[in-house]
């Protein structure tokens, strides 16, 4: 039995049809026009205990709405949803004991009181046994570096500090399931790193199941093995990261540093059909389909014509890849190579 099991999960919002400005507002007041927005459109999703899932998609794709249904905040318009044996929106309080939630744009901390008092309040709300609480708080404080602002009100700490404190608070009661909605948005690299390390340690030590929405692909490579992509309310990809790379990141580029400018690259082109070659002074780069050529073959072909000083291979860029998926430039249902894990296309 998966920990999260959603079938045909759908959320429709009624949005006011309103032109901007006061006139628009007045007009809307009299016409009362609304249109339905299918924010999440019949998605199927099952997540096993211990999995960590990255939930990606362009802005407005329906990520937050999905998370809000999974956490019990929103009641789905249709479809079925069971999380660890409960229907979240029917049993909100029971569900709340088992989950930790962090929304990047909001805070769970009490704005006007010292951070540590928010933690103490969480202890009382979740009835965390004193020893467990002390242990967790000690460990998290150390890992997330919370000590320096523990006694400052949440309203007066920086965004990065707030995020770390929020993360700590979301995990004090040892939830089985952690939902993170854009947890690293707007943070600098050092803080991002710290947060990722921390989340990874939860996954590895406690077997916490993580569901994470993000725009930041670093989050994915550090934390998640599985990627689910949603676009326009529909899931367009569900599979592991390695497979996504294998399936779609077919192009690789090798950059060569040459001893002398090449007289002509024609002979190399002839030897490497369907590859893209580019030269610029002493540099030569070859873009190739790694299912047609091995990197070694490319290197051998180039070296048989010119003298190579140095070379390097570009790894496939997940970022570019996912962007292509968003833009619909990659048709996910008809790749010629290994079968993709596609749910809907």
């Amino acid at each position, binding site marked *: 039995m998966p920990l999260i099991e959603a079938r045909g999960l759908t959320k429709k919002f009624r949005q006011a049809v309103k032109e901007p400005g006061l006139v628009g507002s007045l007009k809307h007041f009299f016409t009362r026009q609304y249109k339905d927005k299918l924010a999440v459109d019949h998605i199927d999703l099952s997540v096993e205990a211990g999995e960590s899932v990255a939930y990606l998609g362009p802005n407005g794709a329906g990520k937050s709405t999905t998370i809000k249904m999974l956490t019990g905040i929103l009641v789905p318009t249709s479809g079925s949803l069971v999380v660890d044996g409960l229907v979240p929106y029917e049993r909100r*309080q029971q569900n709340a004991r088992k989950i930790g939630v962090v929304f990047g744009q909001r805070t*769970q901390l009490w704005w006007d009181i010292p951070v540590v008092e928010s933690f103490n*309040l969480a202890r009382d709300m979740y009835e965390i046994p004193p020893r467990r609480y002390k242990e967790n708080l000690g460990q998290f404080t150390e890992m997330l570096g919370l000590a320096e602002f523990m006694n400052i009100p949440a309203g007066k700490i920086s965004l990065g500090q707030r995020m770390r404190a929020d993360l700590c608070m979301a995990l004090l009661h040892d939830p089985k399931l952690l939902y993170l909605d854009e947890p690293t948005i707007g943070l600098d690299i050092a803080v991002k790193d710290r947060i990722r390390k921390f989340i990874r340690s939860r996954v590895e030590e406690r077997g916490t199941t993580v569901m994470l929405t993000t725009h930041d692909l670093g989050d994915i490579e550090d934390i998640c093995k599985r990627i689910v992509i949603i676009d326009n309310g529909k899931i367009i990809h569900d599979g592991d990261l390695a497979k996504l790379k294998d399936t779609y990141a077919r192009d690789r580029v090798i950059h060569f540093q040459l001893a002398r400018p090449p007289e002509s690259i024609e002979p190399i082109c002839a030897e490497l059909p369907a590859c893209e070659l580019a030269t610029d002074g002493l540099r030569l780069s070859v873009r190739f389909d790694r299912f047609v050529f091995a990197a070694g073959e490319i290197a051998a072909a180039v070296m048989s014509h010119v003298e190579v000083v140095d070379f390097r291979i570009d790894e496939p860029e997940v970022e570019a890849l996912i962007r292509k998926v968003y833009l619909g430039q990659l048709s996910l249902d008809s790749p010629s190579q290994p079968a993709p894990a596609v749910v809907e296309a």
Partner: protein
Amino acid sequence: MAADVAAGTRSAAAARLVAARRLVYLYFRCLGQQMKAIMAYEANFIVLMFSAVLVQLAGLAFIWAIFQRIPDVNGWTFWQVVMMSALIFVTEGVGSLFFEGTWRLSYLVYTGQFDQMLVRPISPIVQVLAGAVGFNGLGNIVTGFVLIGIAMANVPVQWTPGRVLMLVILLVSAATIRVAINLASAASTFWIRSPWSMVPMFVHQLGDFAKYPITIYSVAVQALIVVAVPFAFVSFFPTAFVFGVEAWSLAGLLTPLVAIYAVVMAVWIFRVGLNRYESSGH
């Protein structure tokens, strides 16, 4: 077997008691946090408090002026009417001092900050009620109690222990009704989505009707404040009961039942509304 069942119900009852105690504890815990916050940042609550008191006293002066011209209103004396006003003040004060959070609900719902209350293991209603402290309520409570004392001293009624006990029960019921009405009207925000919904304020204003004997109103207004929004049970009927006004005092006995009715309705309205909650799109 029978013993088992008895033990079972006893432990179920015990569990419920523990749960209720936990709720009350957490309620005051949350409220305490708010209080600390206000103490730390807000010094102008004294101004708020005094302005509230002044507004109320101005209302009383108006009543006093009327009674200078006529000896009674529909058979009600000055001090009886003062008692009705005082009950409105006290309950309003209790509502803001301890349950000010209801006034913030529409803002939380509109901005989506209400999300947080749905992912914590405590009833969102308790969280809403404990969401804010309105120190200005203190002024209303003090004024109200002073007026109740003066009114009690000025009406020809024997203050037996039984009657005093009844007064306490009626006060608690009246405050409960007031808070339930506040909660229910605040829940309207689940239907009318706007950051500063006027409905709670409008309903609040209906309470002003109950500062005077309801016999002066048309049947429609009476029905409104007796049945639909039972402010009459906050002030009019309890006053009639403790001052022994026979025509109405029996209805005063219903006040605790009306309090239960008001709470059940408020919770029901809140729950239905909750399922309409849509968060916000960012």
